[in-house]
């Protein structure tokens, strides 16, 4: 067994994005010794990429807004697959969480009377997103980072967690990690672990996600015996950059459409009016005149460009397939003809800079070419809504790695509020849990097996190149488990993933253990492959279309059966299995909120 060092804490938080830092701040405030471990440097987590804003019914711009409205929009956006209790807590608590950030130093854009300004976004009835231009995520992450530092929370940077540790009873009691810089192992003995590791985007070829989004938390939970839910529900954001090729997938904020931007095809047609689903017909404008009035007059219906993301992504996909795409295979997103250059530069400075510097496009005079990009995993670790406890003792999850909150499709802006609301709750949940506990002894044999297995890649000679295997995984998922799915393609993906997992076992890493990216990628591939399999199996199991999960062979949603079940993923004898399990029924008073007639 290789040597390792050991650190003892009450609560270990895996991930230093918004959810992880928010959880750590709360756990520490509740008296638990808390440490955060992250794969990158502190302050680089994917939260910095969040652009448009954080959704909270503050009612600063439209006093008609309320948590009930936010709850309704969230549930409808999620095609009712959401864990209703999470959606309720989220809508109720988001405003306090945003105001709390303000008292920790965040500076949001202001209304004329000096309060927090809110902007329009897809699927939200009212302008609801507190924001800082188009760099809201950076503001939030830096605020939480500074707060965590001020609270004296220890942050272990550039450390990859390989496996969770469990005791004889199966409860989680820590984690085995790897210092990326030195290649040495480290054990975190913890009474509870909060997973806040973010998403899985790197499983796809075109994604808005960074290299870190390899599904580590999903995989760690599965390997430790916890349940995942809704893993078939993957969000493809409708507007990613598509050119230059190397920038393909980079996010173009929904704020562009929230601020008035429209989508056009190669014929110059504002095509979204042709893609209004029945489900949203009563709240979506049918004419350009009505749509354009909506920004200042909420008594008319919302522009179709602001339908939820799943609808817009499918529409763009269909336009391109029908041969009405732009030269590089996307559609046009036009704000230049809609707003003044000054307004665009002030409200969308990052987009302006991104297109100017990477694509030679001036978005104040030219349209952007955009297309769908893999953006967000709605599914994830199955948690208790109140405490974020997973289905095994000692494990908690918050943020993107947790499932349920967003159902089958997440509304823009609801991710930043999710990580605040449930990060805090996970921190409280874990701190409460550890109060009753004495430190447990990890299964040392399992720990040593994991460490030895991690080193095996150095022993394989002349084997596979991990970068090539990763490309193949991403290519497979992109072409076979993409926006539009069929049983035949999903089955083909499973076969291919089997082959690729075999190749992954034969990956050979050259060189030594110090900061060796090929080795890190080989280890990340373990997570990616088990998560890719979970997603594919779940996608096969849900024989209907709902939110981010679209089956060409089952194009309709199934209100009788599949609306009532979650697809649950768990490991049985080392193999990924899926099962349908009944969802908790919506209480009558919340159901009534969803049925309120719209004016």
């Amino acid at each position: 067994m290789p040597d390792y060092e050991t650190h003892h804490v009450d609560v270990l938080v895996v991930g230093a994005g918004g959810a992880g830092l928010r959880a750590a701040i709360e756990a520490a405030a509740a008296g638990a010794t808390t440490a955060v471990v992250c794969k990158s440097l502190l302050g680089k987590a994917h939260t910095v990429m969040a652009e448009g804003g954080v959704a909270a019914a503050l009612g600063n711009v439209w006093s008609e807004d309320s948590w009930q409205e936010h709850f309704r929009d969230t549930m409808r956006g999620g095609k009712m697959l959401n864990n209703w209790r999470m959606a309720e807590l989220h809508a109720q608590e988001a405003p306090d969480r945003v105001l709390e950030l303000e008292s920790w130093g965040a500076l949001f854009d202001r209304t004329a009377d000096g309060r927090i300004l809110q902007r329009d976004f897809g699927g939200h009835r009212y302008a609801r997103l507190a924001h800082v231009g188009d760099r809201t995520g950076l503001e939030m992450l830096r605020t939480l980072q500074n707060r965590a530092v001020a609270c004296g929370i220890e942050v272990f940077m550039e450390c990859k967690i390989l496996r969770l540790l469990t005791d004889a009873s199966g409860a989680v009691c820590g984690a085995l990690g790897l210092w990326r810089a030195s290649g040495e192992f480290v054990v975190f003995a913890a009474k509870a672990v909060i997973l806040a590791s973010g998403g899985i985007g790197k499983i796809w070829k075109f994604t808005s996600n960074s290299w870190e989004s390899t599904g580590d938390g999903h995989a760690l939970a599965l390997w430790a015996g916890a349940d995942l839910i809704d893993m078939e529900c993957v969000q493809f954001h409708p507007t990613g950059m598509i050119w230059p090729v190397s920038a393909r997938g980079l996010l173009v904020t929904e704020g562009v459409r929230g601020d008035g931007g429209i989508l056009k095809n190669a014929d110059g047609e504002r095509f979204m009016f042709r893609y209004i689903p029945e489900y949203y017909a009563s709240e979506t404008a049918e004419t350009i005149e009505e749509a354009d009035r909506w920004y200042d007059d909420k008594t008319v219906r919302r522009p179709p460009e602001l339908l939820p993301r799943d609808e817009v992504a499918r529409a763009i996909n269909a336009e391109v397939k029908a041969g009405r795409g732009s030269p590089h295979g996307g559609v046009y997103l036009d704000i230049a003809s809609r707003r003044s250059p000054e307004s665009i530069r002030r409200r969308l400075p990052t987009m302006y800079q991104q297109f100017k510097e990477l694509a030679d496009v001036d978005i104040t005079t030219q349209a952007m070419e955009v297309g769908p990009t893999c953006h967000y995993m709605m599914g994830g670790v199955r948690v208790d809504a109140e405490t974020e406890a997973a289905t095994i003792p000692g494990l908690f999850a918050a943020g993107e790695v947790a499932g349920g909150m967003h159902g089958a499709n997440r509304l823009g802006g609801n991710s930043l509020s999710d990580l605040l609301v449930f990060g805090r709750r996970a921190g409280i949940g874990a701190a409460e849990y550890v109060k009753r506990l004495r430190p447990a002894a990890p299964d040392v044999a399992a720990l040593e097996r994991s460490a030895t297995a991690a080193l095996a890649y150095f022993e394989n000679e002349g084997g596979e190149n991990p970068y090539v295997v990763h490309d193949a995984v991403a290519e497979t998922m992109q072409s076979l488990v993409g926006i539009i799915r069929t049983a035949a393609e999903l089955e083909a993906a499973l076969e291919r993933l089997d082959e690729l997992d075999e190749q992954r076992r034969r990956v050979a890493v050259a060189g030594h253990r110090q900061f060796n990216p090929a080795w890190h990628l080989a280890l990340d591939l373990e997570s990616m492959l088990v998560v890719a399999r979970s997603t594919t199996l779940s996608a096969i199991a849900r024989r209907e279309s709902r939110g981010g999960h679209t089956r060409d062979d089952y194009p309709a949603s199934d209100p009788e059966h599949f609306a009532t079940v979650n697809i649950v993923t768990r490991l049985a004898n080392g193999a990924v299995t899926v099962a349908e399990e009944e969802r908790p029924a919506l209480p009558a008073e919340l159901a009534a909120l969803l049925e309120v007639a719209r004016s």
Partner: protein
Amino acid sequence: MTSGDGDRRAEAAPGPRVTLAIWRGDAAGGEFRAYSVPAVEGEVVLDVVQRIQAELAPDLAVRWNCKAGRCGSCSAEINGQPRLMCMTRMSTLDLTTAITVSPLRAFPAVRDLVADVSFNFAMAKRIPPFAPRPRPADGIYRMSQFDVDRAQEFHKCIECFLCQDVCHVIRDHEENKARYAGPRLFVRLAELEMHPLDTVDRRDLARAHLGIGLCNITKCCSEVCPEGIHITDNAIIPLKERVVDAHYDPVAWLGRKILRRPRPMPAAAAAPSAAADPDPANVAGPAAESAG
């Protein structure tokens, strides 16, 4: 400079090519190695580095995250200039010769393009945190966009540390790191100082422990800032002025003496031992027991 192991493959594909000379090595030393790959339209330096990593040098160490100029991870020196690799387009460089890519020189080498930037995190811990005035009776902080704009400029900082890298006070004088926080931390100080709600006075700290006086406003930091923050003009110079006001204003000085009420300064900042010891170990690798 030696030739990387990629040149054999390089000959295979036709068409225009690009060559990067990448610094390979660690704390013990290193050298530039040349890697040549086919040119691809629209690429940035980081794209080429990643292709080299995937095809020619799998163990090439490099940091990156967002690949969109938003996270500040992929800082390096490109042809000697501190830049973000993800925002430097190949088409803006002279491709007729090898483009050099090396790690930030102001910080210790870890491996290849990865430098040990823990100095910055240790320094950040010395700055007393934001402490707002109490909320008004109605619970709503009201601030004008005009007031917010001023501090928001500093909130744009992505902590790429290019300003730290280019600042000659630490780039050329390692010994100054014990008493000089550098432009990034001055931006942080300015952000707090100009925050409409903050109540803490950090001016003595800036002068006595963070070395704002050592900056001689050559503006190198402002020139390399990928976010276009006017570091010198909007952060450092106003800070210097405020420090001077606080320190040399005889009326303020007399007032402090007579009233015996020192400006509030939290314990962490005042403790001289903490100030003199920016220990990287406190950030990433605290003392640990050994086992196994």
